[in-house]
């Protein structure tokens, strides 16, 4: 008998080899698309993946873009690892932004070191509360979390729309759908003059470290991993899991909320209808590409952020259409997911040998 089974004993080298393979396949596939569209593939790929980060400003922009992606994906990794399919991070991000932004507007005109931390904290709590809706419904009412979290994305979007069009719109802003610019005290400090990279990156890095600590050094982390490997195993091992489900959703929601509040207090500086270009959905790609591993997610967030920057640069220099960025993101995930099969093949092959012995 050959068993095709997700196993833990896949050698780490293969485990991290497949994402790299996926990236190469994407580059290859992308080259073909560029060729079909009538561009020199090598040149186009260069403008897509190298030019954007060839100077300090570009590199800082990469970090600005990767910061929210990494943060959300880290949170999602807790959920995904434990087989909880929170795909509503976008909604949690927006709700965090709404709560944080509301507090920022409350503190409009206030100075004081305490303003920003309060805003950040309230953003995290906002995201957390929003994520608890699918979590509580799942644990106590057995409701499918994929669909609930997805539906809530639209609820959050429409709520934000309602607020910035109506009650929260800038009183001096001619009814344009946006709030006031937040006070200086409510903005993330900029790290280097002339660059946009802001203190939010520290929040991300601290979160990465903490999540590594939780996932690999605590009992909770162990529980998460075991329940992710197999629900049956987890049940045999006696985990009830209810608390765990709520905790992973809270972590995930808090991360998304932090990402939202980081965007509005960082590069945006106000609330308007488009505070996130679907970061919450893109972060799902990042989480998978990073293998749900904190370090992997850092790299994955940089790569995916690069596809955004690259699409812009390639359009500026070569007039490559912008949507190639989306095609790339889709392809990376296709290839990554597909090449995961290599893992299964290996196991199958080994299993065969064992049985023959």
């Amino acid at each position, binding site marked *: 008998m050959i068993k095709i089974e997700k196993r833990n004993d896949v050698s780490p080298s293969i485990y991290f080899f497949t994402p790299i393979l996926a990236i190469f396949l994407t580059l290859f596939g992308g080259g073909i698309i560029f060729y079909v569209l009538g561009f020199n593939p090598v040149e186009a790929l260069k403008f897509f993946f190298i030019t954007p980060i060839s100077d300090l400003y570009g590199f800082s922009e990469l970090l600005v873009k990767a910061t929210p992606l990494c943060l959300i994906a880290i949170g999602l990794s807790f959920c995904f690892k434990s087989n909880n399919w929170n795909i509503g991070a976008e909604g949690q991000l927006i709700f965090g932004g709404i709560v944080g932004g509301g507090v920022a507007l409350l503190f409009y005109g206030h100075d004081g070191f305490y303003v920003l931390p309060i805003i950040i904290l309230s953003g995290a709590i906002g995201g957390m509360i929003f994520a608890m809706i699918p979590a509580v419904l799942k644990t106590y009412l057995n409701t499918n979390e994929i669909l609930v979290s997805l539906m809530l994305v639209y609820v959050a979007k429409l709520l934000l729309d309602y607020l910035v069009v109506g009650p929260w719109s800038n009183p001096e802003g001619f009814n344009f759908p946006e709030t006031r610019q937040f006070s200086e005290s409510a903005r993330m400090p900029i790290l280097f003059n002339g660059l946009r990279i802001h203190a939010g990156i520290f929040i991300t890095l601290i979160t990465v470290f903490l999540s590594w600590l939780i996932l690999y050094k605590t009992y909770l982390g162990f529980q998460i991993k075991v329940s992710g490997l197999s629900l049956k195993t987890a049940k045999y091992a006696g985990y009830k899991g209810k608390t765990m489900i709520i905790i992973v959703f809270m972590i995930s929601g808090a991360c998304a909320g932090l990402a939202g509040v980081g965007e509005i207090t960082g590069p945006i500086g106000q609330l308007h209808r488009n505070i996130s270009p679907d970061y919450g959905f893109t972060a799902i790609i990042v989480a998978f590409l990073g293998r749900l591993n904190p370090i992997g997610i850092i790299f994955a967030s940089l790569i995916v952020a690069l596809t955004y920057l690259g699409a812009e640069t390639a359009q500026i220099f070569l007039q490559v259409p912008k949507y190639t960025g*989306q095609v790339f993101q*889709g392809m990376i995930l296709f290839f990554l997911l*597909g090449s995961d*099969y290599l893992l299964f093949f290996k196991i199958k092959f080994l299993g065969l040998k064992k049985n023959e012995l």
Partner: protein
Amino acid sequence: MSFDLNFIGILIGAIMASSVPLILAASGELITERSGVLNLGVEGMMIIGAISGFALMVITDNLFLAVIGSMISGLIISIIFGVLTQSLLTNHVATGLALTIFGIGMSAMIGKNFVGIPGKEFPLLFVNFKENIPFLGPILFGHSIILYFAFLLPFLTNYFLKKTKIGLIIRAVGDSPTSASNQGINVTLVRYSCILYGGAMCGLAGAYLSLIYTPQWIENMTGGRGWIALALVVFATWSPIKVLIGALIFGGITILQLHMQAVGLRIPVQLLSALPYIMTIIVLVVISRDSRKIKLNTPTSLGQIFYKEK
């Protein structure tokens, strides 16, 4: 402002027309989901169907070919999803999401040359009756053939799932792939077929938009209707007839909201627009609490990867 019977008929006719893409996509996705596969790529497949249908209409000048072609394109793009989730055993959620992102990008790429071209007039049936019969006229007549098909489809789907052997097999696969497999059913083949069928229906839903509802190609023209269709399947608790009712409710909220504005009522537009999503969550909660109801229709293995142990 006239709230006479005929006006209500016109209103219902408009609601029906707006619900067609939701019915088509949701009916397709319903079959896919009943076989245990959760394909979140509905939006991506719809937009591919929209551009393919429109492009074929422009190229061949033949609406029939355009409609068929849009279904085939939806089917082809869903093959990617099928190969990945069924043969390469990838995660349904991630693959579906990738399909949507990919589809939106791809459709923009194909559509570049089709922007700004007006669509062709799609023939409407029984227009005379529409105008001459009050109330029932605008409800029953003057629609495109695709609308009639869409309103028939949930009944066909219901019959198919409940009364035919293949329908039973699909449900068996969705409820317990392992036991279905043990009975000698080729689970992978069944699921492949259901995915392809879902793709074709989503393609048709997209073509309805680009050929009939707003006959033109514009980037992102599906505008999130794929996600609403996904919600609808759940809202309908995986029952085809309820998909029809749900689509009319979802479409009705939008249309009535616009009419209320037009007669000068002040309403919180965004909060009304959020209603379908909130209702879906409530329905989801209600059906999930009652374990009998879940068993009735919910494919138990939804979204789970199945691999046959050899």
